[in-house]
């Protein structure tokens, strides 16, 4: 099967993730969407790696996972603290600062 299709899939996942970020209110979900985007990137990396026939892509994928993990740590910390103060994880509630 032509690996290009995996690229299409990656693009699709990425778009889904992005859309999720734009339309979902819950911070956690938004964050998961971002993770989805990152994973879409991973898929793309791996696919390209396969197409190019070198390992760089696969290695980058690992790096990405690590980074994603770190992001989770930081992100969840922030979101949770926000949740505990406001008792809601809605992104839209956090709009004190505007204009």
């Amino acid at each position, binding site marked *: 099967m032509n690996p290009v299709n995996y690229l299409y899939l990656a693009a699709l996942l990425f778009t889904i993730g992005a859309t999720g970020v734009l339309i979902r209110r819950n911070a956690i979900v938004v964050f998961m969407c971002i993770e989805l985007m990152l994973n879409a990137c991973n898929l793309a990396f791996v696919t390209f790696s396969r197409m190019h026939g070198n390992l760089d892509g696969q290695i980058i994928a690992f790096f990405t996972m690590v980074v994603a993990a770190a992001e989770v740590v930081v992100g969840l910390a922030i979101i949770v603290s926000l949740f505990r103060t406001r008792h809601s994880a809605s992104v*839209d509630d956090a709009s004190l600062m505007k204009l």
Partner: protein
Amino acid sequence: MENLIALLIAAPLLGAAVLLVGGRRLDRVGHWIGTLLSFVSFVIGLALFADLLGKSTEHRTMTQHLWTWISVGSFHADVTFRLDQLSMTFVLLITGVGSLIHLYSVGYMEHDERRRRFFGYLNLFLAAMLLLVLADNYLLLYVGWEGVGLASYLLIGFWQHKPSAATAAKKAFLVNRVGDMGLSIAIMLMFATFGTFAFGPVLSHAGDTSQGKLTAIGLMLLLAACGKSAQVPLQSWLGDAMEGPTPVSALIHAATMVTAGVYLIVRSGAIFNAAPDAQLAVTVVGAVTLLFGAIVGCAKDDIKKALAGSTMSQIGYMVLAAGLGPIGYVFAIMHLVTHGFFKAGLFLGAGSVMHGMNDEVDMRRYGGLRKYMPITFITFGLGYLAIIGFPFLSGFYSKDKIIEAAFAKGGTEGWILGGVALLGAAITAFYMTRVMLMTFFGEERWRNAPTPSPAEPSVEPAAETRGEHTEPHPHESPKVMTIPMIVLAVGSVACGFFFNLGDRFLHWLEPVTGHSEGHSPVSTWTVTGATLVCLVIGVGIAWAQYGRKPVPAVAPRGSLLTRAARRDLLQDDFNHVVLVRGGEHLTRSLVYVDHTLVDGVVNGTAAGFGGLSGRLRRIQNGFARSYAVSMFGGAALLVAATLLMRAV
């Protein structure tokens, strides 16, 4: 000898400086300093005159170069004086009459606490006037020209606390400025045409350039003359100028300054000779003013304003003569000199009368004063006879010559001008007789006239300060005032005859002004006869109206013409409506424009940015997701644009 010329000016200038800077400590002696210095100037003038007479005719022009004033590129102006027969004549007139009037003022201004300043201004005027007539180029003349304007401004407005006086002063200066504009444009034209504006080169090369340019220059000079000499259409200031103290009216607004225009035209004769159109304009202005002034003079009840009108019309005579070209120049100047004498005399007389009448100026509140102030009566009377041209008095000679010259112009012009001049003579006789009768004859109308008439608000302040509106006690003025009057009276009787003995004056001036005998369609004697007839008619009518029947203490309504004439033939009203009102509207609207439009555009732009900012910041609505949207959109745009760039 020519080094003395500068002293002529220096003396009064020094006086002005000392008196104005000196401060109160000079109040005691100030007036004497001023008088002394003006006499000094007069003596120097006499010395120079003697020297000039000593010389042969062609060497009678002396110049004194002091320093280079302005020098930029080819633009070169020197401070150089030029004394020739013409300027000599003026110097003597100015310093002579000036000195007399200084003397007179010592008495007249006795009660004014600002007398020192008054004399300072008088000296300033003398200096400026002398500079005017002694300048060797038009730019320097311009300095004197505006200098006398300043002096007259200061002196008309001398009683500044009177709004009327302040207004009159301002008006005089402004109207003069309009004239000055003409002079400066004329100078620019000269510079552009001849590359210089010194008398010598300009006048000697006048012929070398085109008609058009010369006409332009001539008309501009005429405009200047109109401003300074109160000729139509710029005459309106002279009447109001009577707000000034009477000696000022005598010196500046009768004898000397107002005649500067005539000087200018005669001085620039070469230009006018080469520009007949300009000359015609001059004669027309002269003729019109001649009648205008005369008519106004007939209607005024304020003695000074009546005399002012007469001044206007007499200067009209001179301008008319000057416009006639070589045939008229000399007579213009001659009439100027004689007029200087008798009109100054008349004003001083009027001043003396007012002095004795608590500064009342309304002739309808005079009457029968000849018993109370005999000297004034006699001197005034002599002046009167002189101005109406009573045979063998000075006016008779000078005016006759002008009328003859007018006829001698030839053609229909000649007839018209001559006719006008004759008519003028008649009217002159009328209004002067009227003044004479109302003032010195008839019943004593001042007996039952407690308050000054509201018609004449311009009551001199001395009266207010003294607070007397009770019945006046007419009395003769002190010696210091009467002596000048007597001297001037003598002058106005004799000088005409003296000048004409063997055409002295003619030969004296001819080298400067040039002279040509016109061929008059009518003989000299006819003219003289006609003049006398007119004279008699004028006097007769006046006597019929004011001599036989009593004069009403309150002015009757009078005919349309009279009412118009009382208002200077509506000329002021015209100015007010057209210029003043129009100007006010213009400035007010401009202020509005400046605020709303010019400023508004800028403020508007600022406000516009503010509004835009206010609208744009709404995008920043605080919702993270909308920020994400903008980022997403931005990214999309970025990608699209990049692809597009490649596509095209």
